[in-house]
C-alpha cells in the first residue's frame, strides 16, 4: 500500500448540531408523559412526520431507539431477552432489541422513554414493520393505527393508491384529534411542509456536493448525522436551520478541496444499512484504503430527495401520500434500487459498489446476490458483497470481513495500476 490514509478528525457543526438536536428530541420524548404531550411511534421509511407534528403528536421512532442501543453496544442483552421470550434467532434483531427494552416497561436508549400514546404503523415496504408494531401495541397497550401504503409495483404512481393513502391520512387526523383533543389545522400542516421542503433542499444539496472530488463528507458513514434530522425532525424550524448550516459547511469544505480522509483513492456507492454495533471498526476497514462513499442507498430509506421530489404545501395530503408511495427507497422494488444505484455510480463517478448485506432486514438484503450479478456481469462495476447485521453483534465476523475488503481493494488498486501502464 502507498502512504497510509488517515481520517480527518472531523467534528464540525453538522456532527455537533445533529447530536444536540437528537438529544433534545429524546429529552422531549422522555418528558412527554409528565408534560401531557401525546406521542406517536412511527417508522422511518416514507413517514408522515410532518402530519403527526401538525396534529400535535410528538413522533418517536423505535428504529432510532434500536440503532442507538446498537451503536452504544447495548443491543445484545436486549436481543437475548427477546429470544428468551420466544423470538427466533432468525427474526429481525431491530425488533428484538426494541422488544427486549419494552419487556422492561419502556423505551429509549439510555434515557427511559414512556410507551407511546399511539402506534402509527406506516407500512411502507417493510413487512416486518407490521409485526413490529403489532407486537409493540401488544406489549405497550397503545392504540395501533395501520397505515397501509401500497407497494410501488408499477412504473408510475397509481391514482387509486394516492386516494387510498389520503383517505387513511384523513382517518389518522381524526384519530389524533380525538386523542389530543385539539383540532387539526391544514394551514399548520402547510407550514410544516414548507419547513420540510427547506430541509429537503438542504439534504439534497449536501448529497449532490459529494459529486466533487474529493467528496466533502462520506455519504454512508457521515450521512447518519443528517439522517436523524431529515427523517425525524422534518417539518421543524430546527431541521430547516440545521440543513442551511450543513450546506454552508459542506460547500466550504468542497471549495477548500477537503474530504473526510487525507486522500480519496476510491469512490464507492454503498448499499445496505451499516453494522451499528461495529460502526467505527467497519468504517476503518474502508478508511485505510482511502475509500469514500459518495452515495448510499441507506441514506434514502426515509425519502429520496436528491432527484427532485419535494412535498407540496399546496397539496399537503396528496404530496405526503406520493412521498410515502413512491419517493423513498423502501417502497420500491429491489430492481428499482438497481436503477438508483446505477445512477449513483454514473453521476457520482464511483469506482465500485459495496453491498453490506444484513441478516435482519430481508427487505434490503434478500436478492442482493442478484444485484451483484447485475452490476458485475452486466454493467462491469466492481462489486463487493459482505454480510453481517445492523443490530446483532453476533453476526459481525471482523477478520472475515476485513479479508474480503482488503482483497477487493487490492484487486481494484491492481486494476488501476495495470490500466495506467
Amino acid at each position: 500500500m502507498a502512504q497510509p490514509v488517515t481520517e480527518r478528525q472531523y467534528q464540525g457543526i453538522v456532527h455537533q448540531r445533529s447530536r444536540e438536536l437528537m438529544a433534545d428530541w429524546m429529552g422531549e420524548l422522555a418528558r412527554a408523559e409528565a408534560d401531557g404531550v401525546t406521542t406517536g411511534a412511527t417508522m422511518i421509511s416514507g413517514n408522515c412526520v410532518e402530519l403527526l407534528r401538525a396534529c400535535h403528536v410528538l413522533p418517536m421512532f423505535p428504529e432510532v431507539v434500536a440503532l442507538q442501543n446498537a451503536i452504544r453496544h447495548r443491543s445484545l442483552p436486549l436481543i437475548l431477552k427477546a429470544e428468551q421470550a420466544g423470538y427466533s434467532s432468525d427474526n429481525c434483531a431491530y425488533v428484538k432489541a426494541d422488544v427486549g427494552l419494552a419487556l422492561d416497561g419502556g423505551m429509549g436508549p439510555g434515557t427511559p422513554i414512556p410507551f407511546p400514546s399511539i402506534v402509527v404503523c406506516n407500512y411502507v415496504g417493510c413487512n416486518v414493520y407490521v409485526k413490529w408494531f403489532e407486537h409493540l401495541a401488544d406489549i405497550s397497550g397503545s392504540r395501533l393505527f395501520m397505515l397501509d401504503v401500497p407497494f410501488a409495483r408499477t412504473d408510475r404512481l397509481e391514482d387509486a393508491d394516492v386516494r387510498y393513502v389520503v383517505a387513511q391520512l384523513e382517518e389518522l387526523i381524526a384519530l389524533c384529534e380525538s386523542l389530543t383533543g385539539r383540532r387539526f389545522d391544514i394551514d399548520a400542516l402547510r407550514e410544516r411542509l414548507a419547513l420540510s421542503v427547506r430541509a429537503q433542499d438542504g439534504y439534497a444539496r449536501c448529497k449532490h456536493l459529494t459529486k466533487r472530488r474529493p467528496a466533502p463528507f462520506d455519504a454512508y458513514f457521515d450521512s447518519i448525522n443528517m439522517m436523524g434530522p431529515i427523517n425525524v425532525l422534518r417539518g421543524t424550524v430546527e431541521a430547516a436551520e440545521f440543513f442551511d448550516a450543513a450546506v454552508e459547511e459542506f460547500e466550504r469544505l468542497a471549495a477548500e478541496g477537503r474530504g473526510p480522509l487525507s486522500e480519496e483513492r476510491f469512490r464507492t456507492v454503498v448499499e445496505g444499512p451499516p453494522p451499528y454495533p461495529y460502526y467505527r471498526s467497519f468504517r476503518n476497514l474502508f478508511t485505510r484504503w482511502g475509500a469514500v462513499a459518495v452515495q448510499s442507498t441507506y441514506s434514502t430509506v426515509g425519502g429520496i430527495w436528491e432527484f427532485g421530489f419535494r412535498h407540496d404545501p399546496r397539496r399537503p395530503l396528496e404530496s405526503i401520500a406520493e412521498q410515502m408511495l413512491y419517493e423513498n427507497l423502501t417502497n420500491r422494488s429491489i430492481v428499482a434500487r438497481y436503477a438508483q444505484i446505477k445512477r449513483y455510480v454514473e453521476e457520482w463517478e464511483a469506482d465500485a459498489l459495496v453491498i453490506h448485506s444484513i441478516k435482519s432486514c430481508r427487505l434490503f438484503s434478500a436478492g442482493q446476490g442478484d444485484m451483484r450479478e447485475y452490476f458485475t456481469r452486466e454493467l462491469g462495476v466492481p462489486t463487493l458483497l459482505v454480510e453481517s447485521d445492523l443490530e446483532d453483534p453476533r453476526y459481525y465476523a471482523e477478520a472475515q470481513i476485513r479479508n474480503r475488503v482488503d482483497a477487493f481493494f487490492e484487486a481494484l488498486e491492481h486494476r488501476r495500476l495495470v490500466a495506467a501502464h
Partner: protein
Amino acid sequence: MTPDEIFARCRSLIAEPPGSVASRWRAAHPGGRAVAVYPVWAPAEIIHAGGMLPLSLLGGGTSVELTHADARFQSFVCSIAKSTLELGFQGHVEGIDGFVFSNICDVARNLSAVYRRNFGDVVVEYLHLPQNSTSPAVVPYLASELRRVARAFEAAWGLKVTEPALAASIAAYNALRARLRALYALRAEAPHRITTPDFYAVLRAATLVPAEDAIEMLDPLLAALPAREGRPRDRLRVVVEGAFCEQPPLGLLEVLEDAGCYVVEDDFLLGWRWFRDDVPDHGNPFLALAAAYVNRALASSTRHESREHRADGLLEKVRRARADAVIFMPAKFCEPALFDYVLMKQGLDRAGVPYMTVEFEEKMWTFERTRNEIETFVESLMFE
C-alpha cells in the same frame, strides 16, 4: 374412483413440475394461458374468469438442486424463495405464462422483482394486498387493485375478465371451497379415515387444476370417506400452524402421525380456502371479492387483522377442531410465522393449551430427531 385411486392420482400430480402441469392444460386449451400464484392468497377467480389456468407455485421441494438461486439469495433466506427461483432457471416453469406474487413478506416481494428481471419473457404481477382491515377506503382500493391485475392480463394476452365471467368464477371457487371445508370437517370428525399425507396431497392437487376439475375429484372422495374403513387410534388431536407458505415434506407429515398425532386442523394451502364462507354472488364481483378478502378471510400471519388478536384465531381453531394441542410448524427463516409464534404461544399459555415447535425446511429428508421430539411431546400429554 376409490379414495386410494384418488390419493394416488393426487400424489402423482403434485410430484410433477408446475410447468409440466401447465403445459398439459395448455395443450388441451389452445389459446389459454397458465398463471402460477406464489403463496399465500391470489385471486384465482380473476385468472379463471379470463379463461386462464390458475395454479399454485410452491417451490421445488426436494425436486431441485440449487445451482443458480443460492448465488442470488443468501443463506438466511427461506428455501421456498430460492427453489422457486431455481425452478425458473432450470426450466421447470416453462409452459407457465404469468406469475403473481404478493406482499406476504419481504423475501416474496424481492423475489417477484428478481423473477421479472431474470425471466423477461413472462408476465410477473405483484399484487398489493391491504394490511389495513378497517378503513372504509380499503375495499374500494382492493377492488381497483384486482381490476388492475385483470387489465394487466388483458394487456399481455388479450384475455378480458368481464364482470359476468368473474361472477361465474367466484361461484366455481365458492363451490370448490365448500368442498374443501367439508373435507376439513370430515377429517376433524374422523381423522382415522384419511392420513395427513393423503389429505395434504388432495389439497395440493386441487391447487393445480381448474376449480371444476378439483370438484370432480373431491366429490367422489367426500362421498366415499364417511364409509371408509379405519380403526381409530389413541392419538393426540393437534392443530398444525405456521406452514402456510413453504411446503412441509410429505415425510414430515407422515412422522407427525407415526409419532402419535391426528392433525385435525392446519393452515396448509391456506390461500386456496381463504374465505370463512362464500364470497357473495351478487353485486359487482370485483367489489365482492375485495370485500370478502377484507371481511371474510381466515386468520393468517400474512394479513394484519386489527379486529382480532392473532392468538384468538388460533384458539378458535383449537376449539372448533376439538384439538388437544398445537404444533407450530414454521419454515426456517419464515419471519411472518416466527413473529406470530410469539403472540400465539402467549395466547395458548393464557388458555392452557399445550404446544410444541417443529421448524422445517422443504428439503428436509431425515426426520428421526423430529419423531423423537413429537413422541416425547405426545407421551407427556397422553400419559400425564
